[in-house]
């Protein structure tokens, strides 16, 4: 059994539309064909470029790759790596679409085992590849333990709410972490609905385990400046509100009265 990772460029950029035309049909057809030929794979797309891994029986993978090289929807096809493997990395996926390569466990494992540290990509390949994955970062490593109150945090992307229950507290926390730069535990406790250190730390640990969270050592001066920005949003944007509450605060009161849980 073998696996090939390759990159290519889309040839059908539709004006003002950033995705390849009929991507949904391309995916559906790939899934159906791969199922027939015992091939599993992943596909990502960024700024006009595809990144794909296909794995399966040697002959089937070779034939598929030959087809791709002659597929008029692709150009500049280039191999990142070809490996022989005894077990599948992408079990259960005829063709999995991955929007964020850096947070996909199977993709990251493949990278760690076969690409990271090999340094045999050309400069042009590295440039395109960096759209999908940062080879210089430590994102392929296991997430390190959080020193909760000594770090500040931000989210790389929203969690997949098909696997995690979307509670108001979690959605609110993610909205804070994704929109405004780095935030400390102190700030998150003040602005989120997690009232206790223990609860917040548990959720941060969960997000970290899913590789969704970035952290760095607390930088107090910057944090103070950002805190003032966030607080600005929580005070009236103009003086028309006689109650002295912002839209944000009034909406929060309204939702509190409706007891969203």
């Amino acid at each position, binding site marked *: 059994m073998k696996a090939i990772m390759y990159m290519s460029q889309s040839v059908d950029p539709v004006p003002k539309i950033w*995705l390849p035309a009929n991507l949904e049909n391309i995916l559906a057809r790939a899934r159906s064909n791969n199922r027939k030929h015992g091939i599993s794979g992943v596909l990502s797309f960024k700024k006009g470029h595809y990144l794909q891994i296909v794995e399966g029986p040697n002959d089937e993978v070779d034939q598929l790759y030959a087809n791709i090289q002659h597929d008029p929807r692709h150009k500049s096809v280039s191999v990142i790596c070809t490996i022989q493997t005894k077990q599948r990395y992408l079990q259960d996926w005829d063709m999995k679409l991955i929007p964020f390569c850096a947070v996909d466990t199977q993709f990251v494992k493949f990278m760690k085992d076969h690409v990271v540290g090999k340094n045999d990509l050309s400069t042009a390949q590295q440039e395109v590849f960096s759209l999908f994955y940062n080879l210089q970062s430590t994102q392929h490593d296991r997430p390190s333990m959080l020193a909760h109150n000594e770090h500040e945090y931000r989210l790389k992307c929203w969690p*997949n709410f098909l696997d995690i229950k979307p509670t108001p507290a979690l*959605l609110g926390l993610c909205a804070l972490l994704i929109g405004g730069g780095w935030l400390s535990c102190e700030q998150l406790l003040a602005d989120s609905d997690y009232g206790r250190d223990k609860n917040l730390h548990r959720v941060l640990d969960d997000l970290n385990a899913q590789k969704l969270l970035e952290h760095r050592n607390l930088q107090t001066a910057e944090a103070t400046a950002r805190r003032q920005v966030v607080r600005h949003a929580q005070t009236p*944007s103009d003086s028309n509100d*006689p*109650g002295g509450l912002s839209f944000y605060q009034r909406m929060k009161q309204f939702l509190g009265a409706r007891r969203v849980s």
Partner: protein
Amino acid sequence: MSLPDYRKLVIIGDIGAGKTQLIQTLSEISPVTTEANSSIDIGKDLTTVGIDYGRISLNEETALGLYGVPGQERFSFLWDMVSESVWGLMVLVKSTEPPRLDYLDRLLSHFIDAKEKTPCMVALTHSETVEHSELKNLSAQIDLVLHERDVSAPTLPIDCRSEQSAMLLLHTFNAMNIHRTSAT
């Protein structure tokens, strides 16, 4: 609407995605709906042909207007009418139908002001009867479009009939607006 602090939640989606139902669930007033007999089979007789309107008053001078807008491109003149000063953009995607990614891309390009970081969410509706793996495929395709547009938005399943589900959306939009320092 001339309230001193008035914001707009734009709810947009294809035929039968659940716009009218979501506004009925959220609104404190009887929604003003503009429905007509559907020309295609959508599992119900009526479909939105104009803007559905509802409202949530937070006090005498503060309110959130709810605008349900048809997603069909022939109604894009209606998109222009509501695309200013948006507090949140709620895109409803019917889970039982193949995704139309080009269409989602066009909606985002019309409504999302990258500079203003317009808060956006994508809700998967009618998901009760769809297999989990299919929902994951759909969600991944939507996330890909959002990512290409540099739009940071959660994708989550909702039940437009459920008050709890609808309030969850408001809660999230409110949290997303905490970062917007300028008045919307």
